[in-house]
Each structure stands twice: as structure tokens, then as C-alpha cells.
């Protein structure tokens, strides 16, 4: 076999380059015209701006939920409103602003993009987290960050806080201007689900296992060095713009985690509220679909309990958007559920 790669009769590249460019333009059109509307996530992200504006325009208390898929599987807005109503609380306007697999860095840009940059300041922002989600992350889903949660003028802050490696920065620039590139993981999943039997279940199992292996090796995928610059930024902005923040530690199935003391200290120092739901509810493992996500029954039970705990807090939250300082014990606590000690 001739192993040489030297040849003299090479075809010129322009035709091939033209074909590639045409192919990518076609793909870009398909991604924007077909895939984006098809994707539940993308459809939701596109609506966040309008929903944040609509929430701002509501009379009465305005509550925004920030979190990831665990919040989606854990908080039922209808149950929440019903429970609050039965506890004599004026039913607030509620909107969910969620992104799968996200943590504090993504939540910071979501709040920045949809709330603060647009002049929106909900009276209460409830941030549901678990594990190390309040620690600065080192890995992101750059695609959705670039296409939905940030724009090109955000680069100084992003490059300072979040996208610290050259690779992440290049990816963010590419994903900002190239929707196909931004959506490549979703395109990949859709194509593979056509070819690979039980793809979703299989991919989730492998992903979870990879995550466990990384943890065993002592190299967690997020927060290699624990820092809380994003959390601090969120707390600073919320205080400046008059939004009350409530951080909710979410109970996971069969998994105990500790919230980093620096994160707790920051929350306390900035006068935000902290609620450890792990102390307040004991959910059976059967109420979970997997480690993080609740079943429909679990969702209802969790929301009900959460609303019971939240009710006295909302009662004190005036239209001014300020809560009395619960840590100093000046908050009038009433109703069937006393404000728990874990709420500082």
C-alpha cells in the first residue's frame, strides 16, 4: 500500500468550501426556523423577557423562581397559590425562570438579563439550589448562555466571572453568532435518539456515572476551587435594586450535601433569607423519579410544605419589597406554620 500523501493533482478547494458554507447556512436556517420552536427549553427561554416584564407590571406581590430542573420538578405553581390562599396570604404573581443543570453563575446572568438590565425587580426572588450550586462553576452550557441569557455587551463581566478559559470564551463568541453551534448538544441528542435505542435513559445513566466517577477522583466538575463571586454579585445587585432573595436548600434523594460556609456567610451578611427544606420535609425515596427530580405526587407534597413555610414570610413582605429582618426576630410570625429556625 502506498503510504504517501504527496500528490500533484489536487483539486482546488473553493468548490468544497462553497459547499460547506452553503451546508452550514442551510443548517443555520433549519436550526432557527425549526429546531428552536420545537425545543421546549428554547421556547421557554425566548419567553423569559416578556414574562419578566409581565411579572413586573403585576399589582401585588411579585415572586420569581430561579433554579434548574429540580425546581421545575419540585414547584407546582397552582398548588403553591392554593396553599398560600388557604393560609390567608394574598396570592402573589409567580413566574418560573429555570434552566436545566444550571447553578449560580447561570442564575446570575438570567437575573441580570431578564430582571435588572430591563428594570425589573420582583419583590421576592426564590433561588432553589442543591449540592454545590451556589459555588462558582467552572463548566457551563455555553450555547444557551450565548443565545438567550447574554448578549455581546456582557462579555467583560462574563469573561471576568464565568468564562475564564480561552476555550469557553471562543465557544461563547461562536455560539453568540452561530445558532447551530449553540444548539449542537440538542441537535446531537435528537439525532442520536433516532439511532440509539433508549437513548435518553442510556445517556442520563452514563452522564450520572461520569459525574460520580469525577467526584470519586476528587475532581468535581464544578467548583474545583470554591469561590462565591457570582453569589456575591447576585446579592449585591438584589440589595441595590430592592429585590428580596430567598435561598432554598432543596432535598435530594439519598444524598446529603453541605452548603459551603462562605456561601451561608454571604447570604447572612447581605441580609438575604435562607431556608433549608431538608430540615422541614422528609420525602420518601419513592417520591423521586431520580436523585434530583420529584414525581407528580412528590411535587405536590413538596410544594404544599414549601408554601406553608413561605406563607408567614410573604405575609410580612409589603409592596415596598422589603421584609422585616427575620434574623433579629422582628418579623411577626403567625399562621399554622411557625417560621422555622433554619430560616435566618
Amino acid at each position: 500500500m502506498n503510504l504517501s500523501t504527496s500528490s500533484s493533482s489536487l483539486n482546488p478547494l473553493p468548490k468544497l468550501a462553497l459547499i460547506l458554507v452553503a451546508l452550514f447556512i442551510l443548517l443555520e436556517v433549519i436550526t432557527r426556523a425549526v429546531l428552536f420552536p420545537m425545543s421546549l427549553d428554547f421556547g421557554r427561554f425566548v419567553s423569559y423577557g416578556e414574562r419578566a416584564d409581565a411579572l413586573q407590571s403585576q399589582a401585588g406581590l411579585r415572586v420569581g423562581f430561579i433554579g434548574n430542573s429540580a425546581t421545575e420538578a419540585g414547584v407546582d405553581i397552582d398548588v403553591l397559590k392554593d396553599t398560600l390562599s388557604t393560609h390567608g396570604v394574598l396570592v402573589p404573581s409567580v413566574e418560573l425562570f429555570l434552566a436545566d443543570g444550571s447553578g449560580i453563575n447561570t442564575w446570575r446572568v438570567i437575573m441580570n438579563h431578564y430582571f435588572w438590565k430591563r428594570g425589573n425587580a420582583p419583590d421576592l426572588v426564590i433561588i432553589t439550589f442543591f449540592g454545590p450550586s451556589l459555588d462558582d462553576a467552572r463548566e457551563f452550557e455555553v450555547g444557551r448562555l450565548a443565545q438567550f441569557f447574554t448578549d455581546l455587551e456582557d462579555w467583560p463581566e462574563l469573561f471576568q466571572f464565568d468564562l475564564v478559559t480561552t476555550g469557553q470564551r471562543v465557544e461563547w463568541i461562536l455560539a453568540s453568532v452561530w445558532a447551530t453551534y449553540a444548539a449542537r448538544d440538542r441537535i446531537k441528542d435528537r439525532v442520536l435518539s433516532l439511532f440509539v435505542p433508549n437513548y435518553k435513559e442510556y445517556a442520563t445513566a452514563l452522564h450520572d456515572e461520569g459525574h460520580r466517577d469525577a467526584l470519586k477522583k476528587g475532581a468535581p466538575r464544578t467548583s474545583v476551587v470554591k469561590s462565591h463571586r457570582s453569589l456575591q454579585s447576585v446579592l449585591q445587585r438584589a440589595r441595590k435594586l430592592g429585590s428580596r432573595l430567598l435561598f432554598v436548600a432543596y432535598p435530594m434523594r439519598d444524598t446529603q450535601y453541605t452548603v459551603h460556609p462562605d456561601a451561608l456567610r454571604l447570604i447572612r451578611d447581605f441580609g438575604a433569607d435562607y431556608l433549608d427544606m431538608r430540615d422541614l420535609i422528609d420525602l420518601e425515596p419513592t417520591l423521586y423519579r431520580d436523585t434530583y427530580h420529584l414525581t407528580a405526587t412528590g411535587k405536590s407534597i413538596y410544594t404544599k410544605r414549601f408554601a406553608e413555610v413561605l406563607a408567614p414570610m410573604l405575609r410580612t413582605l409589603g409592596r415596598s419589597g422589603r421584609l422585616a429582618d427575620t434574623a433579629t426576630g422582628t418579623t411577626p410570625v403567625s399562621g399554622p406554620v411557625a417560621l422555622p429556625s433554619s430560616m435566618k
Partner: protein
Amino acid sequence: MNYTSWTFWILFALVIVRYWRLSHRHQNDLLLVASYFFYGFWDYRFLFLILISTIIDYIGGLGVAGIRLTTDRIRRLGVLTVGSAILLCANVRYPDLFQGFVELDRRRILEALPHTLRDFYIPFAVTAVCLTYGRALPWLYELPEAARRKYFLVISMVANLGILGFFKYFDFFIDNFRTLVTSMGFGEPSWTTLGILLPAGVSFYTFQAMSYTIDIYRGHTKPTLHFRDFALFVCFFPHLVAGPIMRAHTFLPQVVNPRRLAPGAFEQGLYLVVIGLFKKIVIADNMAVIANHLFNGFQHGEAATLTGLDVLVGVYAFAFQIYCDFSGYSSIARGISKWLGFELIINFNTPYLAVSPSDFWRRWHISLSTWLRDYLYVSLGGNRFGPLMTYRNLLITMLLGGLWHGANWTFFAWGFYHGAILCAYRLLNISDDIATESAAGRAYWLWRVFLMFHLTCIGWLLFRADSFASVWQMAALVATNPAVTLFAVSSFATIVFYCTLMFVLEWWLEGERRLDRLLTSNWLLRAPVYSYLVLMLVIFRAGEAHEFIYFQF
């Protein structure tokens, strides 16, 4: 820094933009600086090892050829060595030092500098060796020719193998010797391993440096007087950490003589880079997820739910992972070398289409297998002293080839296994020549390829498993538990999805008997292939990037 990182490509773009505007001498200087910079990204301290290897082989090569260095040059080389030892090995904490200067913090600057005697152990030792060697050189030059040639060769071999042995095998041998002494009832010795970090690519550049001195000794090549040229020969960044291992007689002239960008070199380079990235990012990294599931499961004792079919599919995934990982690296190395005007040898030639073990080793990691053949197998006597000696030489060569990959008994077993199947095929006199004109001939060829692929997979099981216990468990599962699982079915479909078209392409290239056949094809054929490769690269890369496997060797 590796080929799959954006940082590499940005820096490489800066290098190549400047490169072709420079004179030949300055091109070499730029490549030398770039090579040290790229390597230093991993761990700058190990640059000292490359430098030591370079200086010893530079002096050794000239010494073997009977060329004396002037006292002034010897002194300058000594200063370079000791200076590098102080800069790189005296425990200077450069990030702190830099930060200290930025903040004008005197205390921080002083704390970043070496301040204990221990910090200077390596520079002291290096100075002592330099002074001794410097004093010995005039004496070595005065020796009779045969003795002088031998002495310089031996010094080069001892130094290179010493570096390799210490960094790669010291802990392994201490560990095993301790186990042996303990098992013999002498009590547990107090020796401890040193926890030595393995410098990336140490096996590759030491083998390349050794081949230079050996080739001069054998009269196959001539030494270069230019130290920087020789330094570039040793550390040329495209192939520094994972080969191909180049020989002096083919690569040194490319360094020493002016280069030009041959017509078509850009297209060829682009083709090789795209194919290489596709193999690594799309196939190898996606296969790694499946292979890791299997092998990590056994390593962590979480393999209770796995079946024989899971093992089989996991081993297939590893076979494709390691091939695409390594050949992908070689392909990218060749591609970017072409852009720089260099020609590296082909390291892989459709190895999974081999029909026998000897055919496999003519196609797999060609630069290492030919190195082992020329410098070890032939030196041991090759096949010149009858069948028994031939089998012995094959086994020794393959055992050492296995151990070259790493300090682990599983690598040793892998080498032994390949030596054994080489001997078995030789003993049974199974020919590689298969007439494929008839349908029966093609079927026989297919059977031989299938058999050899599975023999290779057994080898990969030994290569990848963490222990013999895991190998045994996996083999037992394959033999006893063929149950079909979700993992096996989904993984198999994933392997088919990612690998099929790549191997159809390789099969076609094999049939066409030219690896670059695609480059000369009609654009109507090339367009869909290139579109497929680029699309897969953009969309189907793995969620997590993995280091190239051979970096650890």
C-alpha cells in the same frame, strides 16, 4: 496544551503567520521557542529533562562521529545546563514571583524564591555532573576510535534510559520489590515510593534522541554541529508528546535544510488535521464514555449488573477509542507538520484490517514497532539464529514494547500476549498473502480480519484493565453471561453510529491502496465526506474532552 484546545490553535495560528516570513534559521528558532512553550504548558520543570537529553545526545552524537567540541562550547553548554537547572528545578514559585512583582510585594517575592538547601539539590547535582563530564570529555576524545565511539554511545544510552527508568519505572520497581521482600517473609521494608510525576511524552523523545546517537554509531546518519537544530530535532512540538518517533536520517535533514511549502501541502495538511480531529473529538472521546463505564465499573467494584455482552461492547469501544485517539493525534501532527514544511512518517495504516499479528504491527504505531525492530529485535539477533532464538527475540521485544507503555504488570502482560500470538502465527506458518479475487478468498480474508481484530481486542482488555483480577472477571463474564442489556444494545448502536462511516472510508482507502486517495478524488465524492467530517466535528463531539491516551506514555 493539546490539539483539541482552542488555545493551541490560536497560538499555532500566531506561529504560522510569522513562520513563513522568516529566514530558515529564524524559522528554526521560532519553532524551538514554540516547542518549549507548548511543552512548558504542562509542567515547565520537565523542560529540563528534554534539555538534558538534548545536550547529552548532542555531545554524544558528535563524540561518536569523532567531532570535538571546543572548550568554549563545552563551557557554554555547561552554563546552559546549570542555569536551566536553577531556573527550572530550584523550586522557584513563578506565579507567586510574578504576582509579587506586580504588587511590588517584597515579602511575596522573597517567599517565591528558593530558600532552603533542599531547593538547590538538583542544581548542585547537575553542576557536579557537568563539571565531571566536562573534565572527562578531553580524555574521552583522546581514546582510540572504537573505544571512543562505544563510550559516547554508552553514556547517551545510560543517560536516556536513566531518565526514562527513573521517571517511569522507579516507583513501580520499588513497589514490587517491597511486595516481593515482604512476601518472602523478610518483613516490610521501610523504602517508600517517591510519587514521581510522569513527564508527558518522555518515552517518545528519549527514544527519538537515542535513535540519533545509535544511527550515528551505525553510520546511518551524520551529526549536526548546530545545537539549536539538534534541540529542534528532539523537541519539535507537533510530535513531541505522542510521536511519531522520527529517525535522525529522515527528520534531521528536514530541520537542517531550508524548507518550502510544497504545492498541495496546505490541502493535504488540512485533510490530515480534519481527519485527526474527527477521530479524536468525535470517535475517541465518545467511545471513551462507553469504555470508561465498563472499565471503571470493574475498577470501583461496581460491576455486579454488567454482563458478558456489556464487556464485549465495552472492549470494542476501547479498541476504537485507542485507535482513533492515537491515530488522530498522529494525523494532526502530520497535518500541522506539513503546514510547517515537514514530512512526518505515517504511524497508522488501517490496523484493524490486519490479517495477522505481524501484519498488525506493520500497521499499528509504525514508528515504535520499526524502532523496536531496528534497535532491539535486530540487535538481539532477529531471526538469524534459528526458530527458538527468533521466538525468544520476539517475546523479549514485545515484552519491552509492552513495558514501554507504562509501569504496570498489565502492560507487561499485553506485551507478552502480543509476543505469544506473533510466535504462534509464526509457528503455525500462517501466511499473510491472501488471494481475494474469488468469493472464497474474500470470505477467508474477512475471517482473518475478524479473527485478528478479536485477538487485538483481547490484548486491549489486558491493556486497559486496572488489574489481572478485573481481566479475569471480565473474561469469565464473556464466557458465562451473554445476557442482553440496555447498556449493551445502546452502546453497540452508538459505536455503529460513530464508527461505521470512518471504517467504510478506511476500507475503501485500503482497497485503493493509497491513504490519500480521497485527496485526488472528484470533488463530488469529496464534498459529502468533508461535509460529514466537519458536521460531525461541530455537532457530535463528546460532552467531555479527554486527554490523548498516549500522552501518559
